[in-house]
């Protein structure tokens, strides 16, 4: 769908956010943190019990949803309707099912599109579970600040692919949060760290969280935070350390197949033992009435290979950044798993430079996000320049990928490439969008497929199809294709094929509102009317400002549709209002694009901005 006038970035309103409070939320695998910044100083928000680090654990108890410490206690007691580590499933679909099924401590169904979790009395998607965590964090902030919090910068692992980013944004939407920006976790940490220490030079951020690992190389200089490269593994973190201890326990207890609730109890005990081993050389854990001895030495032997993987990623990142190891001034340590002594030792030894863990590794990401949230609402003298973590491309003949945007390209970015037809009289082209570094489609992540239809029949190779890949500042991809000899346009904003359909999000939004017992029908009706008004207002303004961009007859056509839409908006039928709004959008597409092109051309040829609006 072509958005009217295509001007503001998605999720942004063109007006400053006057009366709103914006927070930063670190939506973590094991913990989440919400923070707020004032004048560039960030502070984590504490719950009434004085805790800022909230377990990302959700208990579904009948109609009740419980998030945080209480849910984690239930998890430790073996309640099977408690979900933890949901972040590992964000953006994951049927193609990942096999891999997930063995690893994830919950019953997972392949589902349609994205995976689903089956609980005793419902089936739920990862997006909904994440939304419940975000709602809880939002409520926490509202309560602590005494005012509504509707906007946030939400952090994601730098190495999150497009599907996982889109899923995170959907979760925020479902939680009623306007996402000011999806911010990469290591970048957020670098922002908090850099401002705290007035650091300049080249730094590495080593971020080992509960479920994901990121390494970013950044250059800090006079308020600029430039990400040079990023690498990582979205399926590696402290959870794996717990798993390693659990496997050890199961082995010595001669158990192979245990009940889900029992496994969750065991994992909880293992996590505690792991934390103990950061302080002492030896500890024990009790499980199923037995006591098991765990030594730090043995634990370190087992996690050695996982740490090795993180250092391979670090090497890749340095290579991509074109930076020698010796140029790194310090390594900023982020994420709870960097408390493990062996992780510290291995990283310090490998980089051969000082580590910096002066800021709480559990809070630093949320603090950076809060600083950016303030910057995006009130302005700031700092600037973050981030990159695309994984290459984006199209499937070409024979299942080979043609990379369109290479990894570590700075964002926002736009790249156009030309393709053509390979058969005489071919009237449609299917585009398969993939993400990843491997050369074959089957080794990469499939993001979406779309079809450009209506190409006039020509001989093979005569059509000129320009495909445009655009990645916005959130790291989200949109792709459009256009046959340039005829001007046929097919455009989509990439929604991962195993992600949520728009209708499904709307349904969830409705469901969540029903749970909140608000008068959802009325609210949706009001929203539809407001949207209709907004579209008509913008169009009227645009027509008055750029009459030269109107084709003969267009003004009359738009006016007629606006009359229809006004009639619809006066009624009570929301679907009709939406339909007529969409109709207007569709009609206006060509005009909007001509106007946008004129605005750009005008600006680039040095005209004053007022002249082209």
């Amino acid at each position, binding site marked *: 769908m072509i958005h009217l006038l295509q*001007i503001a970035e998605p999720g942004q309103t063109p007006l*400053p956010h006057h009366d709103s409070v914006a927070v930063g939320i670190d939506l973590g695998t094991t913990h989440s943190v919400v923070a707020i910044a004032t004048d560039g100083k960030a502070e984590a928000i504490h719950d009434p019990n004085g805790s800022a680090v909230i377990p990302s654990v959700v208990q579904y108890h009948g109609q009740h949803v419980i998030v945080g410490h209480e849910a984690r206690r239930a998890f430790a007691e073996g309640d099977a309707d408690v979900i933890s580590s949901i972040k590992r499933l964000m953006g994951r679909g049927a193609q990942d099912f096999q891999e997930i099924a063995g690893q994830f401590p919950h019953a997972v169904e392949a589902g349609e599109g994205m995976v689903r979790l089956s609980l005793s009395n419902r089936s739920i998607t990862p997006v909904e579970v994440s939304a419940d965590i975000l709602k809880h964090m939002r409520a926490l902030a509202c309560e602590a600040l005494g005012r509504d919090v509707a906007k946030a910068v939400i952090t994601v692992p730098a190495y999150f692919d497009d599907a996982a980013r889109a899923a995170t944004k959907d979760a925020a939407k479902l939680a009623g949060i306007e996402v000011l920006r999806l911010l990469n976790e290591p970048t957020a940490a670098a922002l908090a760290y850099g401002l705290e220490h007035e650091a300049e030079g080249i730094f590495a951020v080593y971020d080992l969280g509960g479920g994901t690992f990121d390494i970013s190389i950044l250059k800090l200089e006079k308020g600029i935070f430039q990400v040079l490269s990023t690498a990582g593994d979205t399926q590696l973190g402290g959870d794996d350390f717990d798993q390693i201890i659990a496997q050890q326990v199961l082995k010595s207890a001669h158990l192979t197949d245990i009940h889900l609730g029992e496994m969750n109890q065991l994992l909880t005990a293992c996590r505690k033992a792991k934390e103990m081993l950061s302080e002492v050389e030896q500890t024990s854990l009790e499980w199923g009435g037995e006591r098991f001895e765990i030594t730090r030495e043995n634990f370190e032997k087992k996690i050695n*290979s996982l740490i090795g993987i993180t250092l391979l990623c670090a090497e890749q990142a340095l290579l991509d950044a074109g930076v020698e190891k010796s140029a790194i001034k310090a390594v900023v340590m982020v994420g709870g798993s960097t408390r493990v002594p062996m992780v510290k030792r291995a990283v310090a030894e490998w980089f051969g430079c000082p580590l910096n863990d002066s800021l709480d590794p559990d809070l630093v990401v949320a603090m950076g996000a809060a600083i950016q949230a303030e910057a995006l609402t009130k*302005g700031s003298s700092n600037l*973050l320049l981030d990159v695309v973590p994984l290459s984006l491309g199209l499937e070409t003949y024979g299942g080979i990928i043609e990379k369109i945007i290479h990894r570590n390209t700075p964002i926002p970015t736009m790249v156009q490439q030309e393709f053509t037809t390979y058969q005489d009289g071919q009237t449609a082209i299917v585009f398969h969008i993939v993400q990843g570094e491997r050369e074959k489609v089957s080794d990469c992540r499939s993001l979406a497929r779309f079809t450009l239809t209506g190409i006039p029949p020509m001989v093979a190779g005569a059509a000129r199809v320009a495909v445009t890949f655009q990645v916005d500042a959130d790291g989200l991809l949109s792709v459009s294709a256009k046959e340039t000899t005829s001007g046929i346009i097919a455009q989509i904003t990439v929604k991962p094929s195993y992600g949520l359909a728009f209708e499904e999000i709307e349904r969830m939004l409705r469901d969540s509102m029903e749970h909140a017992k608000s008068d959802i029908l009325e609210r949706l009706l009001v929203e539809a009317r407001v949207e209709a008004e907004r579209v008509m207002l913008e169009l009227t303004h645009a027509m008055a400002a750029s009459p030269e961009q109107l084709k003969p007859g267009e003004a009359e056509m738009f006016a007629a549709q606006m009359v229809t839409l006004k009639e619809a908006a006066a009624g009570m039928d929301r679907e009709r209002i939406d339909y007529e709004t969409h109709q207007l959008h569709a009609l206006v597409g060509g005009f909007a694009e001509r106007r946008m092109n004129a605005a750009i051309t005008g*600006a*680039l040829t040095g005209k004053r*901005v007022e002249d082209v609006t």
Partner: protein
Amino acid sequence: MQNHFELLGLTPGFTLDVKALEKAYFNTQMAAHPDRQIGKSEAERIVAIERSMSANEAYETLKNPMTRAEHLLALSGVRVNSDNDTVKPSQALLMEIMELREQIEESRADGKKLLALVADIRLAADQCCDDLAEAFAAGDLHHAAERTIKLHYLGKAVEEAHLYLYRVKADHHDAHSHESH
């Protein structure tokens, strides 16, 4: 076509002060980046985002000597390393590169040899850059085109060597982790 030098306010030329490039890029992004458009009108915003994207492309192109040379050539209507190139690689160069890639292929499992090859290629690339600076200064576009093509192939060879190096390390790491289990 877009002149990346002009966009960033730089004087076109192969010899480029990296610090000056960076400064020009940062200054442009300070004004144009989407994060810095708070309170701006729609029109200003869209123009800025467009400019931010162009600045990223310009910076990426100019920062790398090979793409910088390609861009300079393209500004003069000379196309290399593309489907519709106007100067094609010489037979001698193709032979040279083929031999180099054979050497890499043969050393695929030997980390030390690979590192030595990478060092050699880097030296050859530095030589290419020196030649390019001279050729562009003398206005010898044909020579510049030849050197740009060579730089392109050397870059591909380094990439390949690094891929093997990465595999050698990953294999070593795997073997190591099996030991510890």
